[in-house]
């Protein structure tokens, strides 16, 4: 191209440039307009919505779980406490790679397969943005290691939590029970309202009073609005509605009495229930062997659980309310009273006991436990004192089963006592109707002979026997047995279920007979009153174990031992003004008078050694200390 041509084009070029640049300027202006419009749209038009989004981002409503109500014994001894525990938790939404996070956590704290597996199961039923526990009970060192590495672990946090602690270990496992982690089964049973009530709460009462008083112990959930950063770390609390702590329960139970009863049973399997005659309050409630309820609080290990479950001694079994045993001769005082009231016998009735009994028109011979008999003229007092079977067979043959049944149920036999411990079983006191319904058979006279001795179809729990004994001691006032004496310091009134009407002289007679058991030369329960400075009335029982005969093919020594008779004893004291009634069961103890009576003696002795002015009622009830405050400071520390 020539210089000439290019030179000539100079102005054209400039014009072209201007032309193009002007279009470009229009483009720039238009695009800037787009940006301004965008900003206007975001910041002015949709301001409210984005403002909300940004607040939702940083502000989260967190449930503040209430502190579970504490449980005290009648003297203010703490039976169920709350302790701070540190839990490693993860918010799923904040974690990019869960497996990698778990892996790196595994290097900081001890994590086993089971932890991870449980965690993954929990993950599936979490609420959005809820921290899901991975490991409980972190040690101080583990907490420190996690804190140091926290920046590297988004979504991972150490949460302070109060967990139940049972300072008395095994002693109250069957009465107070325990809490455990809320399981899928619990969740399935939750109503809409429950779901919100349990927000932030990890535990629920599973067994014992923890379960039956769950509603009171739980308290009301609170909440707080917290500001968090993108990693879910709580920076500050903006607003807080405090939770309402659960109610404090004060029990009738007495720790020292419980200890005495438990020690008196020792290593033997069995149960002891002691009841305050004047109120129906349960003073001691022992089922042995027992277990450590603390194992269950944060989730029991499979090994521990199978050990408890598979033990031949069934420690998880609550013998006091779930164990249905033939009560044996412990029924005799009640049966005697019933016969007196029904006019079947009188104070003067005597029988000749050759050591056996034969029903009319029946060839079967019923043998007394004393082969040579209790004598030619045995009256009610003697029959009770020596536990004469023949006297009661005779009485039963002349009475009828429905009369016996109607009388026995008024003492609480054959139905649940209504105690505030769950999963109670009703036992059986048979009647014609019952047998027809349950067995499809009519009543035989022989059945009555078994029933009057607390054998055959008759089954009762140790608690029922204690209630029966307390009702006798009360001369007929049948209280509902109760564990809880007061809720938040408000005394729960005793509840009279009904009154057994009997003539005073008949009560006297039965009292005398039961006293003779303990004090007469031939009494079967002399060990129950040995060396005590107050008068004890009692009755022994030695009951054959029904239904285990089929197991006899096992020849092992352990099973042989388990085929022996159960030993029972019921007693109350003092006779002139009864305060306490007790029932004792020793499985395979063979002899009520020898094995069970000394246990009853220990319990009565301990209780009667008290100065009642001091221990009765709520005079010594202590207000709870302030575990709430200590938790809050712990929580703050955990958040750092």
């Amino acid at each position, binding site marked *: 191209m020539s210089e000439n041509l290019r030179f000539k084009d100079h102005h054209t070029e400039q014009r072209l440039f201007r032309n193009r640049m002007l279009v470009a300027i229009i483009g720039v202006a238009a695009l*800037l307009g787009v940006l301004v419009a965008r900003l206007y749209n975001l910041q002015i038009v949709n301001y409210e919505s984005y403002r909300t989004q940004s607040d939702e981002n940083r502000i989260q409503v967190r449930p503040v779980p209430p502190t579970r109500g504490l449980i005290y014994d009648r003297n203010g001894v703490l039976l169920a406490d709350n302790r701070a525990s540190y839990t490693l938790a993860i918010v799923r939404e904040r974690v990019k790679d869960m497996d990698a996070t778990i892996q790196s956590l595994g290097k900081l704290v001890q994590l086993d397969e089971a932890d991870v597996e449980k965690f993954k199961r929990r993950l599936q039923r979490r609420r959005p943005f809820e921290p899901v526990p991975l490991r409980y009970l972190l040690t101080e060192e583990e907490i420190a290691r996690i804190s140091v590495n926290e920046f590297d672990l988004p979504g991972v946090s150490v949460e302070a939590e109060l967990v139940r602690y049972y300072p008395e270990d095994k002693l109250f496992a069957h009465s107070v029970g325990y809490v455990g982690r809320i399981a899928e089964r619990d969740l399935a049973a939750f109503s809409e309202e429950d779901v919100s009530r349990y927000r932030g709460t990890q535990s629920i009462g599973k067994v014992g009073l923890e379960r039956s008083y769950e509603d009171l112990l739980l308290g009301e959930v609170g909440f707080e609005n917290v500001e968090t950063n993108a990693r879910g770390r709580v920076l500050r609390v903006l607003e807080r509605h405090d939770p309402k702590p659960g109610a404090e329960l004060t029990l009738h139970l007495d720790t020292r009495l419980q200890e005495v009863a438990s020690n008196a049973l020792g290593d033997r399997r069995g149960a002891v229930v002691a009841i305050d005659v004047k109120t129906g309050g349960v003073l001691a409630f022992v089922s042995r062997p027992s277990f450590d309820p603390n194992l269950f609080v944060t989730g029991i290990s499979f090994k521990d659980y199978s050990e408890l479950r598979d033990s031949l001694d069934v420690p998880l079994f609550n013998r006091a309310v779930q164990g249905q045993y033939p009560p044996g001769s412990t029924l005799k005082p009640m049966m005697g009273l019933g016969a007196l009231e029904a006019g079947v016998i009188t104070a003067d009735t005597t029988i000749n006991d050759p050591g056996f009994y034969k029903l009319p028109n029946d060839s079967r011979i019923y043998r007394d436990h004393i082969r040579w008999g209790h004598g030619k003229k045995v009256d009610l007092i003697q029959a009770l004192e020596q536990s004469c079977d023949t006297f009661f067979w005779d009485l039963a043959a002349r009475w009828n089963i429905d009369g016996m049944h109607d009388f026995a149920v008024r003492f609480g036999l054959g139905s649940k006592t209504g105690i505030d411990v769950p999963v109670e079983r009703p036992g059986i006191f048979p009647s014609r109707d019952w047998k027809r319904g349950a067995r499809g058979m009519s009543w035989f006279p022989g059945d009555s002979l078994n029933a009057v001795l607390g054998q055959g179809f008759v089954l009762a729990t140790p608690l029922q026997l204690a209630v029966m004994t307390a009702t006798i001691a009360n001369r007929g006032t049948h209280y509902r047995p109760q564990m809880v004496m007061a809720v938040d310091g408000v005394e729960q009134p005793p509840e009279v279920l009904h009154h057994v009407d009997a003539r005073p002289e008949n009560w006297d007679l039965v009292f005398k007979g039961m006293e003779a058991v303990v004090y007469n030369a031939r009494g079967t329960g002399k060990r129950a009153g040995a060396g005590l400075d107050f008068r004890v009335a009692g009755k022994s029982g030695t009951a054959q174990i029904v239904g285990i005969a089929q197991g006899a093919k096992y020849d092992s020594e352990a099973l042989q031992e388990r085929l022996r008779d159960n030993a029972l004893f019921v007693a109350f004291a003092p006779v002139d003004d009864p305060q306490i009634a007790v029932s004792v069961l020793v499985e395979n103890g063979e002899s009520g008078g020898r094995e069970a009576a000394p246990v009853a003696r220990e319990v009565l002795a301990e209780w009667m050694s008290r100065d009642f002015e001091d221990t009765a009622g709520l005079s010594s009830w202590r207000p709870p200390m302030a575990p709430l405050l200590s938790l809050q400071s712990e929580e703050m520390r955990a958040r750092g």
Partner: protein
Amino acid sequence: MASRDYMHRLPDAGSSLRRPESLSRRWHIDLPLLLLLLVLACVGLVVLYSASGEEIHYVKRQAVFMGLAFTGMLIAAQIPLEFYRRWSPWFYLGGCCLLVAVLFIGVGAKGAQRWLEIGGFRFQPSEVLKLAVPIAVAAFLHSRTLPPSFLTVVGALAIIGVPAMLIVRQPDLGTSILIAASGLFALYLSGLSWKMIGSAGLLGALAAWPMWMWGMRDYQRQRVLTLFNPDADRLGAGWNIFQSKAAIGSGGWAGKGYMEGTQSQLDFLPESHTDFIIAVLAEEWGMRGALILLTLYLLIIARGIYISFTAQHVFGRLLAGSITLTFFVYVFVNIGMVSGLLPVVGVPLPLVSHGGTSVITLMAGFGILMAISTERRRVLF
């Protein structure tokens, strides 16, 4: 002051000899541009202090970079335009060689290979091309008759295409687009016929489908999809945009106050001190603040366009126009991306985002702009 001087001189070439040279002219400084850039840099540092979570060392480091960049700008301004034009083929070829080298011996991070390491010093050759390409295209067109003939256009496209393709391969789509844009702006300003622009646009639209299917990587496709449906995956791919929109929107007209932005201060906003820094400003200073920033950018762009109008010859005109429009593209792409109008591509907000190398390149560009603006009137041909 200075600008009025130019206006006086404009219609009358050669009049500069009549007056004594002003100091700024002697040192090749365009005073309005310098002032605007300084103000912008200061605003950037102030916003950065908040965006970095009150970490003064970030701000100090950035200030050092700024100092280097302003020095670079002044040095670039001293170099005669003729030098840039003469040496443009060598800049360009050298840059392309470096890009080829990156493909073979480059080092990288996050799956991209973008750097060369020489004696422990990391260096990104694509930065060189950000200036080398517009200079080369402008110089190429300078020596042709305008409007460009078809062959000229093909030549210019080749000059643009080679480095753009090399950078796409790294991969660095954002930089590649910016470099291509800078070359295309020069071509466009040279008087590219509307017919050609129209047919190129049509071709581009036709190429979109094959590009989508075969030309893009998965993460790039994901970013485009996220743009259209940011709520689909709030905690994954949509997180950044969701959070930055919430940050901008929640700022409202007046903003939440300096260092009071909850989105940025509580770490909800990702990359808050680099690519997404405009969201911090918009959250804390509100729309007021964002408009002030946009006005600053607008003034700088206006000044750049003005300089391009006053340039003495085709090379200066095209180069000034290209540098200015590319600068605008930076601003538009960044703000468009952060506010959810454009897919996420790694384009920093000029002079505000934290980061060293891009600032230096950018300021060198402004240095060239100053060289154009203060060029003595003399005949170049």
